[in-house]
């Protein structure tokens, strides 16, 4: 199932946040959104997932979600959004219960996703007993449990320290290589974008417009830390972003 953004514009009250965004998120690809702070990336993601309605334009689903998909558009949040009163197991079963999946069927799914995110030993732990990286892996496991057609990830690694972030990026690459998933991935970290993105959309400062779309053909598993080709793309992205970020900063100063 592909997602098509069709000329999306969005305003909050009088402030225009997004302007005329058109882009395809093709099946099995990770599309990264980068852009200066406040340019509307999170807003765009909420629009894609149907948590908010765009002022203008439409978000279209092309094709039908794959068989067994419980929640086609599934978020992974920056702040994990785990229920503190439920165990890891309970947090994942939460999203299955409403689909009538309980007991042994739920346990099978839960142990599968926990194995895929290397959390099998923590099934009965409460969120407060987990480290940040583990919490985010639980959130990813929860997202995988509903077999999403598209994962909507809003800075999923930003709350983590840089080592944990590296490790989790490897985990995401491994997950994707085993079974390609579709994702819209918001980040302000360009290293993440060139590491995970098949396609990187660079947004301008507010109101966010698509500045450029960079395609990276190199397969995910071949992209290593410090690869010269990726460095070059990252530098190109940074040059674009720096001007935008600086201009955005100056606008703030003039307010």
């Amino acid at each position, binding site marked *: 199932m592909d997602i098509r953004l069709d000329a999306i514009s969005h305003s909050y009250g009088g402030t225009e946040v997004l302007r005329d965004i058109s882009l395809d998120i093709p099946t099995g690809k990770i599309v990264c959104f980068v852009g200066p702070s406040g340019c509307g990336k999170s807003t765009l993601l909420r629009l894609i997932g149907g948590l908010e309605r765009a002022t203008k334009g439409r978000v279209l689903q092309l094709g039908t979600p794959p068989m067994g998909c419980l929640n086609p558009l599934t978020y992974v949040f920056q702040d994990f*959004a785990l229920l503190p009163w439920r165990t890891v197991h309970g947090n994942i079963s939460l999203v299955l*219960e409403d689909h009538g999946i309980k007991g042994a069927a739920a346990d099978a799914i839960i142990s599968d996703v926990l194995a895929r995110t290397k959390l099998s030993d923590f099934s009965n732990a409460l969120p407060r007993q987990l480290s940040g990286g583990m919490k985010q892996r639980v959130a990813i496991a929860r997202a995988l449990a509903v077999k999403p057609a598209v994962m909507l990830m809003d800075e999923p690694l930003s709350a983590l320290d840089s080592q944990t972030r590296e490790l989790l990026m490897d985990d995401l690459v491994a997950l994707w290589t085993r079974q390609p998933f579709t994702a819209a991935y918001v980040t302000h970290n360009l290293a993440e974008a060139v590491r995970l993105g098949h396609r990187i959309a660079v947004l301008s400062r507010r109101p966010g417009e698509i500045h450029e779309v960079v395609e990276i053909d190199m397969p995910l598993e071949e992209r290593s830390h410090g690869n010269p080709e990726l460095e070059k793309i990252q530098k190109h992205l940074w040059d674009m972003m720096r001007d935008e970020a600086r201009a955005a900063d100056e606008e703030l100063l003039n307010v």
Partner: protein
Amino acid sequence: MSDATIKTQPIEVRFRGGGFAPKARRWVGLAVFVVLVSIMEIGTRSGWISALTLPKPSDVLATFKELWESGLLFKHLLPSLSRLAVGAAIGATVGVCAGVMIGLFSYVRAGLVPLVAAIFPIPKIALLPLFVIWFGIDEASKYALIAFGTFTPTVVATYGAVDNVDRSLIRMGQSFGLSWFSIVRKIVLPGAMPGILSGLRISLAIAIILLVAAEMLGAEYGIGAYILEAGSLYDLERLFAGVVILSLLGVILSTVIGFIERRLLGWRE
């Protein structure tokens, strides 16, 4: 400068963390009780507290024993407990439901919040004659008074607690396609539970206060009636025996809520 640094002895960094994390210290509360009662006993025995100011704790205990042996204790206690249970259960249940509705629906909020604010400061005891006219002099008016008194603090605590539930968790529930009912039951209510329970502590204490008030008017048996009778005769021993029963009731209820908190809110730590 460098001289000074060489000469001065190393000083261990002063510990300034800790505190602000109450732990269970079971016996301290009991010790405070014991000390206070001993002071009263010694004071009344030796005479520097006159018998008119305070009764002897040992006499109060004797009165208590008498109550127990004559079977009057349960004759007074049982009606009181049933009034408390029925009234507080009605008030707390309706209060939690109304509080959740206020927390969830803008129209209910707009309609009920000013009403609750208007009702809250009314001394419910002042309304007792009104309740007697509405519900009769029997049990119903006593239930109504206690229920009404527990209702308002429960509502306020509950909707405050619902307001404080992390919105990002609710968004999460919506994004996974959970039904409205599931979101309320599995996210809003557990998230509001700490606030609801601490509100319940206050509500139940108020329920005990109102229990006595209700029984002071037209009740043959009940702790309130017993205290009132003792008070009008200036029988301090019996008055204190009644008051001690009320205090014990408060301590028991508070312990029960503490137990529920430990069961339901173990995830907080």
